[in-house]
């Protein structure tokens, strides 16, 4: 199995306040730690599991800055074989259709059976890039995949629908699968793998290197304009319980007991 896995370096904003920069179209990510996008982490694991079961070769593809090399090396430490990082500021990152075009350029012209990627990025959450990428590559796809069974010349994908219902589909290979979180248990990179990853090839390329006209994936080519980012007002009618942690706990306990809630 020849595979590609597309991953994204994202800020962890799960328990932190997000602020918009004065330019109004970017967020201040200076205070955040960055790591692999959650769903992409599962995609990496799935590619390595398939490689272990069927033999094969996995190439990591990512668009991002130099500091994301640490994420790419980690994916290689887990078992991916080589990587291509596209570093180019001219890609309109707000439009998944442009991102898909750039990713496709790094894959096109090479043989592959599967391309895996996360079904959603935790930062901008379009859930669009993988399916757009499949169309760019002219291959089959299935999105939000919670289980993968590789058959002879085909793949059986279990798609997660609303309410936990699964839709099982069969696709002829090659195909793009967008992977849903929880499909597997992402491993920790073994020490030996981390050492080996340093020796694996990580190619850094620009749009020009890929033979892509920068104008075809830039803001001018994008048919949508990100006009403004803003923090939505938290319209909360909640009673905020104040004080030190222990005081808050005591007050909450009284509210719950006196209100007959427990």
């Amino acid at each position, binding site marked *: 199995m020849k595979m590609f896995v597309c991953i994204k370096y994202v800020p962890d904003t799960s328990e932190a306040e997000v602020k918009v920069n004065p330019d109004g179209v970017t967020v201040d990510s200076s205070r955040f730690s960055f790591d692999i996008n959650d769903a992409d982490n599962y995609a990496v694991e799935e590619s390595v599991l398939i490689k272990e079961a069927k033999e094969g070769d996995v190439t990591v593809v990512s668009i991002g800055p130099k500091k994301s090399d640490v994420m790419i090396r980690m994916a290689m430490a887990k078992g991916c074989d080589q990587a291509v990082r596209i570093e180019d500021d001219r890609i309109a990152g707000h439009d998944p*259709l442009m991102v898909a075009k750039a990713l496709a350029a790094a894959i096109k012209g090479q043989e592959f059976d599967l391309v895996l990627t996360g079904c959603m990025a935790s930062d901008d959450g379009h859930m669009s890039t993988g399916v757009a990428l499949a169309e760019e590559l002219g291959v089959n796809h299935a*999105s939000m995949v919670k289980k993968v069974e590789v058959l002879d010349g085909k793949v059986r994908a279990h798609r997660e629908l609303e*309410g936990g219902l*699964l839709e099982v*589909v069969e696709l002829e290979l090659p195909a793009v699968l967008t992977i849903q*979180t929880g499909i597997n248990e992402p491993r920790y990179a073994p020490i030996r793998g981390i050492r080996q990853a340093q020796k694996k090839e990580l190619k850094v390329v620009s749009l020009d290197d890929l033979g892509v006209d920068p104008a075809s994936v830039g803001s001018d080519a994008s048919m949508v304009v990100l006009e403004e980012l803003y923090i939505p007002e938290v319209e909360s009618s*909640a*009673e905020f319980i104040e004080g030190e942690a222990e005081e808050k706990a*005591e007050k909450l306990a009284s509210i*719950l007991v006196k209100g007959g809630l427990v």
Partner: protein
Amino acid sequence: MGNILVLAEHRQGALRDISYEMMALAPKLAEDMGCEVTVLLVGSKMDDLAKKMAAYGSKVLVVDDPLFENFNAEKYQKVLSALIDDLKPAVVMTGQTAQGVDFIPALAVEKNLPLVAEAISLEYANGTLKATRQLYSGKVNATVAFKPADTYLVTIREGVVEPPDAAADGAVEKVDSPLKDDLTYRSFVEYIEAEVGDVDITQSDTLVAVGRGLKEDKNLSIIEELAQAIRADIAGSRAATDAGWIPHDRQVGTSGKSVKPKLYIAMGISGAFQHVAGMKGAKTVVAINKDPEAPIFTVADYAIVDDMFKVVPKLIEKLKELKG
């Protein structure tokens, strides 16, 4: 100008809520754009569903063919592609659902049309269509404007509006299926129902739910102690079930269960809309989270901004004391 083409979604013989919800958004947008709404249904044996959609006053186009007995992204893409050529709609609107996300981005690439995914509202003014969508799990809103195009593609987040009341009956019109032969490269195999666990959290009176803030497995013991003290069942957000801390059948949210307990205590859950959609039926909501801007607080009745691990031990102690 072409019409707003709303793709009504259905599964296993029933319309999905998003189909009705779009009928709350589309007519208003059509009025602003100076056009009409046309509903599109693609499936097999669609008469009843077509009648239901027609009750919202717009014309319903039906592609009714055994080839569409089950959803198939590739087939849907082919139908929409052909109908866009025929009808030249100003807008194609679908749900940001497991169906919508599975083919709309590919359609956008195929037809070279602009796409905004998961809009929570739409506005048309001075000839420009703009959508509001959310980033960072609802912590940031974005205004996205479409550049002028023949057709705009937009997917709508589930549950952002209430379905409207039914209006006068619209006409139902069958259209020939643009797809003549079945596809061989993608096929539907079967549906597999969600697993059933030992506790049915949809029936629980009291739920203690944990999210990413739980940090690790071993922290679950203090949560179990709290749950025991107030006779609650334990549930979790997607992050908690993905991490393996909580069984999957106890996941609250769009891809899990919808719950309606008398008391819901959300701990270390940021409250992304996918989670909130599953617990907004709770009578009283208590939220504990370190981040004062966490969206979970918008649906809470009682809120504590703090580290859950500093709050919970004292909470257990005091609850035991008060309840004797």
